[in-house]
């Protein structure tokens, strides 16, 4: 357990046992920038990301007493963010089907070779977007991602590889970045 993990646990205990607002605000300051960045890259909308982080923190504090410390608090919170995003995707499934390969970018997206990485990530199918954002941008390990998403670490690796391939196609990098 790192020093940061220990601090997180002490702050979490103060929130659970004493409903301590100051402790919560410290946890908020430590983790919200990362949670918000993850939510924004998964939803592609600042308004949606703020709502996701709001709902995720409510859910986290409601269940903070059950946090066992088997993973870091950062990983646990990121998992809640991903779940909240998934629930929103399900609710809006007509706009963006969550588990539908039709949402994957096709060859026609090659015309977007000049778009930046954020825009390209937003075009990924949700399951690829999740793994790419969590691994390549936020720096979680495949084991942590597997724990968050309820998949094997191997599945996480496989989806990451496909996400990278789709992104290369969208960014027009296949010719420049030789494997």
């Amino acid at each position, binding site marked *: 357990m790192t020093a940061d993990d220990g601090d997180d646990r002490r702050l979490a*205990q103060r929130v659970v046992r004493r409903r301590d*607002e100051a402790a919560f*605000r410290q946890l908020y300051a430590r983790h919200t920038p990362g*949670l918000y960045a993850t939510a924004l890259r998964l939803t592609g909308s*600042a308004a949606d990301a703020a709502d996701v982080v709001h709902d995720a923190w409510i859910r986290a504090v409601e269940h903070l007493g059950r946090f066992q410390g088997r993973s870091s608090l950062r990983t646990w919170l990121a998992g809640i963010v991903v779940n909240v995003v998934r629930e929103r995707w399900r609710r809006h499934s007509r706009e963006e089907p969550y588990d539908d390969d039709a949402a994957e970018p096709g060859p026609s997206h090659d015309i977007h070779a000049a778009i930046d990485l954020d825009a390209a990530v937003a075009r990924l199918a949700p399951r690829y977007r999740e793994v790419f954002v969590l691994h390549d941008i936020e720096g979680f390990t495949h084991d942590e991602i597997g724990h968050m998403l309820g998949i094997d670490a191997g599945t996480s690796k496989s989806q990451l590889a496909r996400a990278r391939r789709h992104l290369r196609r969208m*960014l027009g990098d296949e010719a420049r*970045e030789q494997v």
Partner: protein
Amino acid sequence: MTPDEFEPPLDAARVSRVSPIAPPAELEDRIVDSLRARGLLGTGGGRRTAWRRYAVAGLAAAALLVVGFVLGARSLGTVGDDAAPRYLLLLYEDRTNAAFSAAARDSVVSEYRRWAGQLRSRGMLVMGEELSEAMATVPEDARDPHAASDGRELGGFFVVRAADLAQALELARGTPHARGGGVVVVRPINPT
């Protein structure tokens, strides 16, 4: 390892150019307000606008409770029948409850006065105290066994004398605390 796993990372410089994203400034207070509304955060220890707003309500509630407890303790210091069983009344409260707001101060103080007068005339109160919000445990990491799952906190207690549990429950139902939305737990005290 499957062939899929050989896909190398994107150009590191490109990924590193992903701009840092700051959450909206108002989000923190919005979340704190929501947690308060659900009883998941108390009224102390905050900052900014929410701190100031809730500090006033928190101080008013604390002052109000002190007045009530002091009135009760001072006026009910005598016990009529020393042989009557004693009961502990544990008072759980939601400290953000509007029933204890500054606006309700006069009516609640008046209620405490009336309730204290009734028990004094019947010689049924042994003592009563308000508890501070501060708390520590031994061992240090132990969970507070009195922390209610619905967010209420143990805010004070009374020791009363009553003929039996039914009468003690009747006293509990009559407390301003219970009528204001608080929860009162009644525990018989074993004679020593």
